[in-house]
């Protein structure tokens, strides 16, 4: 792994983090750095706890060991209201969008503004329309969340995530289940938001192409460990078999096609058991 050193000027820094759910170790002493103003991607197969990592960074889950530093704050040492103040500056885009289903698009985007500011309604309107314009859905403001397609819902959620002008956004699987057009739109949107607003972006994804296209730095996770890291180019040329399998989508390799089982022939010949 002859890769460039991890970035220095980091906004989010995960140090020696361990976390397990039940008996399953999800993270085993991992350290990650997320540089200011850059797009950093975390990649890995499903079930490696990528979403869990975002929840740890957001302070919704507590690690067993290790620390998470966001903008010089140790997230898990903060008091409740300090954590809430920090979260106002952290946007998060959930996989499902997590729009509030009893409000229309406009009210959803206005929600964080109304909860956290005492701005007059006319100013809220201006701000909401600006955010909706940024994601290209100003015309959809009257729609209810159940009238939106998946891609639109995600873009609305993105508009909501940037409503308070945060310093960073965490994207949880932004491309999953999207048609190519929405994928393209989201890729472009993430990149332009990052550049225009000077955000720090963390993308959790297993969509290799899209992520590699916009990420400045990539971490590849597997089995609770960081198995590869570097710029997209470096990752592409990584000597690690595992990383190669993942990036190229090979069905067999270090990650086996078969779930662990006893010998196939033995299994077929053993009779008298139901399973």
């Amino acid at each position, binding site marked *: 792994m002859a890769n460039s050193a991890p970035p220095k000027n980091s906004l989010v820094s995960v140090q020696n983090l361990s976390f397990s759910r039940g008996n399953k170790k999800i993270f085993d002493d991992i350290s990650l750095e997320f540089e200011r103003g850059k797009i950093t991607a975390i990649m890995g197969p499903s079930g490696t706890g990528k979403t869990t990592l975002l929840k740890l960074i957001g302070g*919704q889950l507590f690690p067993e060991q290790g620390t998470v530093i966001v903008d010089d704050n140790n997230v898990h040492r903060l008091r409740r209201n300090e954590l809430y103040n920090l979260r106002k500056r952290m946007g998060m885009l*959930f996989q*499902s969008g*997590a729009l509030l289903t009893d409000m229309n698009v406009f009210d959803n985007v206005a*929600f*964080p503004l109304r*909860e956290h500011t005492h701005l007059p309604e006319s100013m809220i309107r201006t701000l909401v329309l600006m955010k909706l314009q940024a994601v290209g859905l100003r015309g959809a403001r009257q729609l209810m969340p159940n009238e939106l397609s998946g891609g639109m819902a995600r873009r609305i959620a993105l508009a909501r995530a940037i409503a308070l002008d945060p310093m960073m956004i965490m994207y949880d699987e932004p491309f999953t289940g999207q048609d190519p057009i929405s994928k393209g739109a989201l890729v472009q949107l993430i990149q332009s938001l990052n550049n225009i607003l000077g955000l720090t972006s963390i993308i959790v994804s297993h969509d290799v192409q899209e992520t590699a296209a916009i990420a400045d730095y990539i971490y590849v996770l597997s089995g609770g460990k960081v198995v590869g890291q570097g710029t997209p180019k470096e990752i592409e040329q990584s000597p690690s078999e595992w990383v190669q399998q993942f990036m190229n989508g090979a069905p067999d390799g270090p990650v086996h096609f078969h779930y662990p089982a006893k010998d196939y022939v033995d299994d077929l010949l053993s009779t008298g058991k139901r399973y």
Partner: protein
Amino acid sequence: MTEFLQQLGRNTHTSFTKLGRASFFLLQTLSGILSVLARPRLLLNQLYSVGVLSFLIITISGLFVGMVLGLQGYYILSDFGAEETLGVMVAASLVRELGPVVSALLFAGRAGSALTAEIGLMKATEQLSGMEMMAVDPIKRIISPRFLAGLLSMPLLAALFSAIGIIGGQLVGSGLLGVDEGAYWSQMQSNLDFKDDIINGVIKSIVFGFVTSWIALFEGYDAIPTSEGVSRATTRTVVNSAFTILGLDFILTALMFGDD
């Protein structure tokens, strides 16, 4: 045998941890009530979905229950030549028992299940989690207003149920069966006490509103965030509310009407 004991132990453990979570949840909910009072709009919206939408089922059921009481009461009382006390019988059974209990059961079925399903779905679709990440406390923003709305609606609904039931009993009693209307009301007034009957009935309905809202909201909040988990939680809300209401009713009745 050991298996059975193990299972028993495991079940006890689960129930106690659940009770602990529920108590913690209640404390958080109660501490969020002050912030609800600062934003009455949230409460108003919930009063609509919890109270107004239960209005029709409560009033119609109240009318029918009162009419049945009038009919049955008349048949029994006329055997003893005591038809004039029909009003007392109808009013006492409604105000003391049926009003609070039946309206609470209906409330659990109508509003409680809806609350559980709503909160459970919000959890399943990451809305609660998303709110937390937007630095909005979902307990304060979502749970507490609904809890307060349930607590306020229940005594009002129970009072409506009893009042309409008493009128229904009178319609049947003196309209159809010929009990003297004056006797119906005057016997009722001289035998029902404001403090012992009305206030105790109101206290009951407040207690039922408290536990039903608590159970419904907690089951939703604690639901496994899948469609199956939410549907199970909704069932549990109705079943557990019914058990709790009936059990508490016995205890409250024993405490309130015991020494006379």
